[in-house]
């Protein structure tokens, strides 16, 4: 399976020395035309559908990261028993790479934007989670759970930016984005170590990897898709994935090396 990788803003196809692998496995879901049931018994009606899941891993030794100096705001320091390390590349068990956006570039027509809200919290002077992905026009709830002031400065390139002052514990602000945009930067100007990312997509076929690098995409109709993995520091990797009836798909991305 071929693929290419590039760093954000590098202009498209600059390859990185990254190995990619796509593994098609023959276990898991059974699929049929018309009404069908997945392995958990849920009804999948009217189309051939398959889940696509996988892991993103980092090969080699990740950067050690730097300790965060929170002495400018004693409240922040008091929230952590141990020193907090700023890790631009966060690697978990078995080399799993956390915080990577995996999304389908040529996704099927989008369904209606869900009414659900996605939370971006500030806890212990850190963003939680470190990145969120939402649909166009989906609401992002930005909360300050700290007893200290944060400002939330969001600087998109396509969408409209904003800068919110959140001086009170528990305050929530709601915002949405009207255009798809990957990698919107979020930061606090008071606590310079605080940074996060908001991804906005015009479809629902995306996921952000967990601490172990794993992800699960929503079910896809049979077809050929270009799937991309995006990481702020490591760039992007993409590969073509064929989803066929009766075959669940497992996708593997590997950065580093």
């Amino acid at each position, binding site marked *: 399976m071929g693929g290419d990788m590039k760093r954000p803003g590098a202009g498209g196809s600059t390859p990185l020395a990254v190995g990619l692998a796509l593994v098609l496995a023959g276990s898991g879901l059974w699929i049929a035309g018309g009404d069908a049931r997945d392995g958990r018994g849920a009804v999948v009606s009217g189309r051939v559908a398959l889940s696509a899941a996988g892991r993103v891993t980092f090969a080699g030794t990740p950067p050690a990261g730097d300790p965060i100096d929170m002495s*400018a705001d004693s409240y922040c320091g008091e929230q952590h028993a141990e020193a907090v390390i700023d890790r631009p590349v966060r690697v978990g068990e078995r080399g799993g790479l956390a915080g990577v956006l995996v999304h389908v570039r040529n996704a099927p027509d989008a369904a209606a934007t869900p009414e659900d809200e996605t939370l971006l919290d500030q806890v212990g002077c850190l963003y939680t989670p470190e990145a969120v992905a939402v649909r166009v026009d989906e609401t992002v709830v930005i909360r300050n759970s700290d007893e*200290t002031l944060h400002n939330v400065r969001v600087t998109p390139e396509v969408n409209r930016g904003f800068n919110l002052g959140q001086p009170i514990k528990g305050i929530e*602000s709601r915002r949405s984005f009207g255009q798809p945009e990957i990698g919107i930067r979020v930061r606090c100007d*008071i606590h310079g*170590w605080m940074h996060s990312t908001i991804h906005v997509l015009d479809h629902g076929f995306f996921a952000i990897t967990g601490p172990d690098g794993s992800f699960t995409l929503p079910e896809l109709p049979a077809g050929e898709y270009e799937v991309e993995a995006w990481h702020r520091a490591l760039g992007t990797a993409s590969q073509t994935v064929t989803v066929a009836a009766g075959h669940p798909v497992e996708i593997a991305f590997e950065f580093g090396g």
Partner: protein
Amino acid sequence: MRRTASRRAGARGWWVWAGAWAGAVAALSWSAPADAQDGAALYAAGCASCHGTDGTGADESRIAFDDPLPDFSDCSFASREPDADWIAVAHAGGPVRGFSETMPAFGEAFDGAQLQTIIDHIRTFCDDPAWPAGELNLPRALITEKAYPEDEAVWTTTANAESPGAVVNEITYEKRFGPRSQIEVKVPFGFAEAPTGEPGTGGELDTDWGGGLGDISIGVKHAVWHDDQSIFSLATELVLPTGDVDRGLGADAVRVEPFAAFGQALPADAYFQLQGGVELSTDTDAAEHEAFWRGVIGRTFTSGEFGRAWSPMIEILGSTALEDESGVNWDLVPQMQVTLNTRQHVMLNVGVRVPVTNTDARTTEFLVYLLWDWFDGGLLDGW
């Protein structure tokens, strides 16, 4: 420069509000803001971490941005703008007035009453009452002088609507000194139509157009009294005979023009201003002694919550020569001032001066000025 309570630029391009983490925050919670009406506590929670507990700006080691911070204890900075502009920036963030994007919007954290208490607290950082409040910096009319001392430059153009034709420009530069004083220099120049003395093709005397300098003047102004809603100033101008007399661009006499000016802020962003004085000439054959009195009344409207400011005004002008029986010249000057840029420190005013008496000897004039409050930033800043 002019302004009203609901608009005007903040000052300079370095507004950067932000807030404090401060221990006072511990007393606050989103569900129950215990000190909701305490300006000092709200300032500590929302502002002090960047602007400092004393308003002079937090130490660079405590913040993560490079934008220079204003000094709220500097009266020259802190007194110039009305509360409404401070509240606009606090509510919607720096960009609402063309200032730094680093200044966040606190409109979802504090309501209008809370923001007002914060501004009230910030006002305490300047403890010198000699500085008139920004609310007294009323919109500048086309003719009537303001009482408020300013830092601004104004280009005014006057064009006759009837023959003889004349287009006169006047560049005014004003510089404030201390809390109450101001000097100014006016340099007029223009083009005017004048008879050549030769008969024209239609039998009437022929005319031609020519340009030249007008009478340059220098002036001083001092605000002798003010309270929260009113301001009274005394001023004088010295007018030098530098103009082209033949073109009607000047008079061949030195004149001294002492006058008084008064400004009154009214509810609902309305206001009136008065000016009265005399012009005394060193050569009454060249320029008569004259008394004048002027008044302007207006109100400012805002587009949207914090948008462009529109100030319709009407001036009533009166003047009379002191040594003859020529009567009183009365004029009306309806006009509209509008802010041009987001920072609201560049403005345009357009009006027409219509003679009401002695209309045979005086012509209708179109007037327009472009005003730049240079203290608030460069001419191209804040658009």
